[in-house]
């Protein structure tokens, strides 16, 4: 499909897959500051799908859209290095504390303003594993959705999409406009392109520019500026954002105190293992 406009939804997340020993504080809570912030893995799969469409047709543009703190501009640059055309950072105090519904409200308004033909997101973000934002954005836009996509291509004006389900696969055909969420089983994202890194490494948002050093300014003009949008830019009703716009509330957070069982301590020695096996056989746990 020549000339279509694609928006990729991407989120910066703490890398919960590599929780090291120092990730827990002494009181048993998570030390977020030591977890590296990364491009949500399945959103990279989503970006790859968008880039493949861009390569296959004329005049396709790919815009990355992310909502988060200023720091999340990092993943927009990461997307530019891999072939995205531009990026929008949705950032505003009023967004803080949003649950998935309030998040999807803001994202849907931003998508409306961008007016793309196709929105592609990841299946889920690893910080909560909720997989809600994609379908909720689709509903807010009033568009159909296709989740768990693994492969897609156009046949005429319709997208043919292979979905990976728990127990099999399903092929569907869908018209545009459409929201697609991409599964981790889809092809991995291509690497950064060295030329694009050179071109975009100085891309900054306005807020980032204010904090830049003179070295940066001496380095010259960046190829593009990363657009920053706040509540006003998308015409959002602040009541529908943040804590007040979120139907779900956290009532309480409880630290898990593991109650120690009376456990038998053994070593890996032959004697210990043999007596364990015998004990399990005798009490019919195994055998």
């Amino acid at each position, binding site marked *: 499909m020549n000339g279509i406009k694609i928006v990729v939804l991407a989120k910066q997340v703490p890398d919960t*897959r590599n929780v090291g020993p120092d990730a827990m504080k002494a009181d048993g809570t998570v030390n977020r500051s030591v977890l590296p912030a990364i491009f949500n893995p399945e959103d990279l799969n989503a970006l790859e799908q968008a880039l493949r469409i861009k390569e296959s047709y004329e005049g396709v543009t790919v815009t990355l859209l992310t909502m988060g703190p200023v720091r999340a501009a990092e993943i927009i640059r990461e997307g530019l290095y891999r072939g995205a055309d531009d990026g929008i950072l949705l950032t505003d105090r009023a967004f803080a504390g949003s*649950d998935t519904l309030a998040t999807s409200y803001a994202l849907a308004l931003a998508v409306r303003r961008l007016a793309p033909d196709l929105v592609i997101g990841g299946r889920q973000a690893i910080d909560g594993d909720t997989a809600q934002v994609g379908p909720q954005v689709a509903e807010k836009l009033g568009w159909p959705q296709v989740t768990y996509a693994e492969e897609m291509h156009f046949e005429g004006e319709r997208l043919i999409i292979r979905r990976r389900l728990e127990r*099999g696969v399903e*092929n569907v055909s869908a018209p545009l406009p459409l929201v697609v969420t991409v599964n981790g089983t889809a092809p991995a994202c291509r690497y950064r392109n060295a030329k694009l890194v050179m071109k975009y490494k100085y891309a900054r948002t306005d807020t980032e520019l204010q904090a830049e050093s003179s070295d940066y300014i001496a380095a010259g003009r960046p190829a593009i500026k990363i657009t920053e949008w706040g509540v006003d830019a998308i015409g959002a009703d602040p009541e529908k954002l943040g804590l007040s716009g979120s139907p779900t*509330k956290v009532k309480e957070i409880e630290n898990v105190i593991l*109650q120690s*069982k009376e456990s038998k301590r053994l070593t890996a020695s032959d004697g210990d293992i043999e007596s364990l096996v015998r004990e399990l056989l005798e009490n019919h746990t*195994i055998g």
Partner: protein
Amino acid sequence: MNNLFVFCELDEGRPAEVSLELLTRGRSLADTLGCRLEALVLGSGLDGIENELFPYGVDVVHLGDDPVLEHYRTMPYTSVITGLFKQEQPQIALMGATTTGRDLGPRVSSALHSGLTADCTSLEIGDHYVKKTDTTYKNLLYQIRPAFGGNIIATIINPDHRPQMATVREGVMKREIINKNYRGELRRIDVSAFIKPEDLAVEIIERHMEARKVDIKSAQIIVSGGYGVGSKENFAMLYELASLLGGEVAASRAAVDAGYAGHERQVGQTGVTVRPKLYIACGISGQIQHTAGMNQSGKIIAINNDPMAPINSIADYVINGDVAEVIPRLIKYYKANAR
């Protein structure tokens, strides 16, 4: 009005296991609330399906039986469910955290502007007091799940929005028939009243469903490997031990992410919940998201080279050592002693 609804998914024309589990939990929550339990089933050619649901204590079965609903599709299902929910105003709506439930739940919650909590590991009824306004919300649904990073359990509530929605994975709740002669009422939904032509925009071209291959849920003995097993090759030892013991191999998410085992073997909050007679945790640290799916096992053996690993505190036997040494010894002494 204001009853508890369970969306009952079908698995080859029969009520899915997870839906029956939710009906069982739904029945006891409805008893606590003093409300009715209502089931919602959509599909095609479903004559008599209500009889499979009533024994779980279902007071009303809402049946949408129409060829257009034969296979699950997001938009027509969403339209029927949101339409029905607008009429019936349920206070609680539960669904399975399956590929269907996780596609449908957020869509419905967005349409009704009601909160949704994914992958709950426990559901309870309780009150909530807000100091600022000095109001007490009575009888809310506590949606309980491990939260970010583990080590914390969050209780989520939706004080002001209805229905209170939650998804739960298969195996988390127990399934139990309340009374095999229990009879509720069957109500047919006029599906055509809810579905708009544009709901049919996405067409299914073909489907290939596979029979359930690996079934760790019903295994009596589980040998489960974590990131500490170190490689896919090392998992071979676990398969050998499991087949000797007549059990199955399972894995932690870190092991699945690393490609050591398939996703269908993942135990935990976002995997399968298991309750085997014996669970052997090999090189698994025991984060809450993992233990949420196995802490009800009969006996737990932890094999870990870190004497302080959290898994040790819920284990009956703690073997402090290297997986690569311990497993071959277990195999050897089992062969030597079993008859």
